[in-house]
């Protein structure tokens, strides 16, 4: 793997990426990572957002006295939800905008898509469209994960005993997807055919939305809390094992009856996965702090960070062009990888 370009061939020139990482001292738990243009952003357990660009690093106190509990990139903004009950957007220039204030109730999940933002606190879910109109609903139990559908103004909500599909702009009751157990994170496939949740019981659950057919993806030794789709939408990577578990979604039935691929097997647990936005390369973060890039086409592996102090990798994000990868850990370490050209 010598470049971020799709279909790049290995020339043997690069054997590791360790020298291409700029270390970042986040100083607190890293809850989320995103890019706004060329600025990398880490959302932190001390309520700050750390901005990193060519000029250097600076901190923005987005949630004074609080902690960021959930974060999601939204194009030119980084959306954070805190235990201060606030939803805040931070821009690349360090400016912050208050999006919502839920009066001190914890913001458990956030999602963003094309100018729209959604968040949950307990059972309460709010969706704010690009014009700023906010619609609210109450889920049957606490919502742990929110995802926007790739098309239409529609949300998938993960909660106890299943999920709900909600069109915020209609008064219709949300569509219920049942599956016993506690559902945590939520994700739509990029083609909108499948809705996937991670579960308390160390597995993924999926629904084929056309007929609500269930899919179980089990066998994980830990909860698969990180999910990422390849740029072509044909693969979904997941954490929760000692390798990134990558499910094929090309077929009509998705991964049903198919074995997943395992990439980046190491003697550590995978905690984060992030597919490259333009190539079949997956970035993998481990609970020992290591970060590795694996190319799916030939399984070639490149280390970007060796195991290190600072705890598990808890956040990872590529920039839009796939030239840079930002990551952060549970105890406040982080880094910015720039792929060699």
């Amino acid at each position, binding site marked *: 793997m010598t470049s971020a370009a799709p279909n790049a061939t290995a020339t043997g020139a690069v054997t590791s990426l360790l020298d291409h990482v700029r270390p970042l001292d986040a100083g*607190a*738990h890293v*809850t989320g990572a995103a890019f706004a243009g060329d600025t990398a952003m880490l959302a932190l*357990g*001390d309520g700050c957002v750390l901005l990193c660009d060519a000029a250097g690093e600076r901190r923005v106190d987005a949630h004074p006295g609080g*902690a*960021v*509990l959930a974060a999601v990139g939204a194009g030119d903004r980084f959306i954070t939800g805190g*235990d201060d009950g606030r939803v805040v957007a931070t821009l690349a220039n360090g400016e912050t905008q208050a999006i919502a204030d839920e009066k001190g*109730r*914890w913001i*458990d999940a956030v999602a963003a898509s094309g100018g729209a933002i959604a968040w949950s606190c*307990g*059972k309460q879910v709010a969706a704010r469209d690009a014009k700023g109109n906010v619609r609210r609903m109450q889920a049957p*139990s*606490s919502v*742990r994960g929110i995802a926007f559908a790739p098309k239409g103004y529609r949300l998938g909500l993960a909660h*106890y005993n299943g999920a709900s599909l909600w069109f915020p702009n209609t008064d219709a009751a949300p569509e219920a997807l049942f599956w*016993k*157990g*506690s559902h945590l994170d939520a994700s739509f496939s990029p083609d909108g055919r499948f809705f996937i949740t991670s579960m*308390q*019981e160390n597995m993924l659950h999926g629904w084929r939305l056309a007929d609500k057919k269930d899919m179980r993806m089990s066998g994980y030794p*830990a*909860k698969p809390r990180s999910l990422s789709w390849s740029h072509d939408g044909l693969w979904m990577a997941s954490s929760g094992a000692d390798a990134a578990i990558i499910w094929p979604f090309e077929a009509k039935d998705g991964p049903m009856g198919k074995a997943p691929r395992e990439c980046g097997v190491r003697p550590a647990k995978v905690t984060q996965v992030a597919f490259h936005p333009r190539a079949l390369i997956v970035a993998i973060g481990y609970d020992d702090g290591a970060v590795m890039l694996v190319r799916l086409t030939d399984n070639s592996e490149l280390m970007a960070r060796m195991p290190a102090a600072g705890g598990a990798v808890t956040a990872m994000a590529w920039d839009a062009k796939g030239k840079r990868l930002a990551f952060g850990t549970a*105890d406040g370490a982080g880094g910015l990888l720039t792929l060699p050209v």
Partner: protein
Amino acid sequence: MPDMPETNTGADASGKIPVTVLTGYLGAGKTTLLNRILSEPHGKKFAVIVNEFGEVGIDNDLVVGADEEVFEMNNGCVCCTVRGDLIRIIDGLMKRKGGFDGIIVETTGLADPAPVAQTFFMDQDVQDRTRLDAVVTVVDAKWLGQRLKDAPEAHNQIAFADVLVLNKTDLVTPEELAGVEAQVRAINPYARLHRTRNAQVAIDDVLGRNAFDLDRIMELEPDFLEAGHHAHHDSDIQSVAVTIDGDVDPDKFLPWLNDYAQREGANLLRSKGILAFRGEPKRFVFQGVHMMLDGDLQRDWRPDEKRTSRIVMIGRDLDREAIEKAFRACAV
């Protein structure tokens, strides 16, 4: 049992944050005890998790409202429940790690302590970051008799306790107090019991108990001298203790214990045991909540220590004779 010199609260050597569960019927004095713990000059900071519709007036910086969402695990068993909100809240609290030394979970008066305790057995992430220190139950000396008649939860809360705070002793006569204590002891003879007014109890008696730490389960003797209050059977919960004066065969005992917990788990509230396994120089210690068992070999039997095997079970409608017979069949 003499008090062990202990440092209370604060993450231990494993880096895990201790969690104290505070239960008790409405009005028994839970919030008084909570505020007492928080206002003591111990220099510790706590995160307090309370029911969001519960009693107000908690004097602490970090108070989190919980909604007490009890979830069944996917094994299809009604007793295997966890507090989903607690998993979520602990996950969130750990993001601001370093900001506090301990977590106190105050449950509502109607809550069954089992799902709270089981959360610490069932969820790996919670287990990796925190440890359950003790279940502390506050009991109202004046109204306990009534509660035991009308509230099944009150029985569970007493049965689950590692520490019992028998509060409002100033509102009853010495005879009434003795009667209430006997009622409590008939359900749970093993918890440490403190008689209090205004929930005035030393902080070391409620925090830093390590009640769920296999290393710290030292002995399994009743906490009072006059054992055997058979007169007071106001509850369908009782305790069964069996001692074998020597070793047991682990190949017989472990399968029996696992099978028993699976079969009777719904009725079995708490269990503990210290065992001498044949040919094993170390003590085997276990404890359980419903069907969830946690057991391991601990320190060596000391030369001056008699190798005995003892199990204690607290539960509802337990078959004393069957337990005794099955356990004795494991003797070497």
